[in-house]
């Protein structure tokens, strides 16, 4: 499960062309990944300083998956997300300030403070919502793809979920339907090796890829730390789905740098410090892309540093906005139960 494919071999010419063509996109990817990283570090800080109610599940380390996949999407394409959803929201275009407001239970939050970290939804960016039920959005995403097909809108739906969601039967139920009806959907399994505090070797028999292939779904396993590879593969599967050639399944191997949630500090009983260090040092998707940008002379160190500080500023401004925002009126508690 842990082997990952290297980016395909390319001719030097081809590569130079790709670099030129992709330069703007990869610079944006770099910015988006940093935005997510700084956002999450700020969330962690809010938790540690007891300024945020409840918990949150940080996406740091997995940024290339959300960003690479969402770069392959149209603005009106749909995504569904998970308990570890901040990265997906941001990659699909959510604004930092309204996200912080939501995490803090404030009125200008995406859900007026009613959803919180695990339920951010934003229909303007096609985000049908994070979901606190593992595998809980598989049906929703498949239904969105169904709508797209029925209404002929050409939209694709992306369903993000973790390796743990492979334990949920409903995923197989809807993958079967998506395949039967050739729905325009991409199932993205973010394999970060763990279901909470349990390694997936203990919970997941056989082959993850084969679980989708059994339903005749086009499936690929890739290194989820390489945003360019994620993008290229997602692009192929998304366009295939959009053309009506049926659903795809993308198994992206990745890693979460923090604990399962912000409060998960003692982790050595389920994963080693060495493993964590290895991923942070060698497999950080931001470093990987940054190095590539430098090597290919797409950007110089100063440019990257500028992006870094801009992203940091955006996050700082966003959290200020959230902290200063008002709570909803108490009377809102009984609003929005029914439409």
């Amino acid at each position, binding site marked *: 499960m842990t082997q990952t494919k290297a980016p395909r071999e390319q001719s030097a010419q081809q590569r130079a062309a790709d670099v030129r063509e992709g330069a703007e996109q990869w610079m944006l990817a770099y910015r988006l990944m940093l935005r997510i990283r700084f956002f999450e570090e700020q969330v962690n800080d809010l938790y540690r300083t007891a300024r945020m109610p409840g918990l949150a599940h940080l996406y740091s380390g997995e940024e290339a998956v959300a960003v690479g996949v969402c770069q392959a999407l149209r603005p009106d394409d749909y995504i569904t997300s998970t308990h570890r959803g901040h990265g997906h929201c941001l990659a699909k275009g959510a604004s930092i300030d309204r996200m912080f407001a939501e995490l803090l239970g404030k009125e200008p939050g995406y859900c*007026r403070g009613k959803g919180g970290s695990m339920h951010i939804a934003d229909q303007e960016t096609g985000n*049908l*919502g994070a*979901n606190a039920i593992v595998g809980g959005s598989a*049906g929703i995403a498949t*239904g*969105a793809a169904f709508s797209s097909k029925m209404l002929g809108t050409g939209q694709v739906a992306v369903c993000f979920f973790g390796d743990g969601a492979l334990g949920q039967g409903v995923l197989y139920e809807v993958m079967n339907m998506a395949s039967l009806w050739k729905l325009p959907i991409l199932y993205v399994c973010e394999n970060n090796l763990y279901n909470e505090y349990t390694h997936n070797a203990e919970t997941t028999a056989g082959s993850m890829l084969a679980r989708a292939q059994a339903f005749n779904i086009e499936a690929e396993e890739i290194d989820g730390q390489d945003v360019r590879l994620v993008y290229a593969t997602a692009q192929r599967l998304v366009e295939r789905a959009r053309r009506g050639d049926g659903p795809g399944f993308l198994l992206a191997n990745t890693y979460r740098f923090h604990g399962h949630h912000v409060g998960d500090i003692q982790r050595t009983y389920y994963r080693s410090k060495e493993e964590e260090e290895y991923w942070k040092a060698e497999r950080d998707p931001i470093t990987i892309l940054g190095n590539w940008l430098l090597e290919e002379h797409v950007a110089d160190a100063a440019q990257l540093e500028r992006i870094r500080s801009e992203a940091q500023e955006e996050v700082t401004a966003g959290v200020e906005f959230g902290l200063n925002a008002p709570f909803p009126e108490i009377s809102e508690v009984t*609003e929005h139960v029914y439409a």
Partner: protein
Amino acid sequence: MSTPSVVSSQSSQAGTGQMREVTLGQAIRETLAEELRRDPTVFIMGEDVAEAGTPFKVLSGLVEEFGPQRIIDSPISEAGISGLGVGAAMTGMRPIIDIMFGDFIGLAMDQIVNQAAKVHYMSGGKLRVPLVIRTTLGATRRTAAQHSQSLHAWVSHIPGLKVALPSTPYDAKGLLKTAIRDDNPVIFFEDKMMYQLKGQVPDDDYTIPFGVADVKRAGTDITLVATSSMVQIALAAAEQLAELDISAEVVDPRTTTPLDKETLIASAQKTSRAIVIDEGYERYGVTAELAAVIADGAFYYLDAPVKRLGAMDVPVPFSPVLEDQTVPTAEAVTQLAKTLCGRV
């Protein structure tokens, strides 16, 4: 069971056109056909809904008119189709999901309760789930414990869901139209044994608002609150009671959520006695809520405790001699009403 229902509110809500006699099954079918014609975003998905028209044959003919793109046979995946329905509802469609037997909603409870019911609220009012889940309830079909339950109490309990239980062809049609046009998830329970029940429906388009109880028969001595399959039982009991000079009022809430508390309470205040009859298990069932509401709201008017008759608290047995014990009968209602009215 053949007592004709007195649909008192009918004339007030119906259009001005002609009335026709149809069965409850036909009423459902023609409602679906009318809504499918009216709104291209409506579709039906479920097991054996297309050519087979469901095992109850309620949907027969729909696929011929609307085609397999809109009347969709699904795999046997109750959770999956419910989940797909939620997502489709959030993105512009108005799905009608068919769960063959109400007993199977256990398979879909997470999708119904954690997804459908909560999306609107959790998103701060932005996303909507105009989803209808049609399913069945009722025993005495000799199909044993896993095909005979009336589990509407579960969903009635959940904020964000609406729950409708028609007891006549007229109500079935009016309530189902409302359900389909509603922007919220609605769970619609049909009594399997009532599909052949006949009644008048108007030719004109009409809807019945949710949360409006219907007085199926007016009376002065005792209130019989009855739902779905139990309405005909209550009406039959009312006939029997009339012969004993006890005037029973039969009130059908029609929707458990929202609940028309006012009508229930007003009736009990007027009659000073009430029995609540429902085919779900009695314990922690719909009779409990209705009885508690009445006992509270009519407290100072009641001459006797509010009594409840639900299904017996046992898994439904197969053997007919046993199964017949488990569902409230007109005789049981009559007997209890007599006792409450001091006529032992």
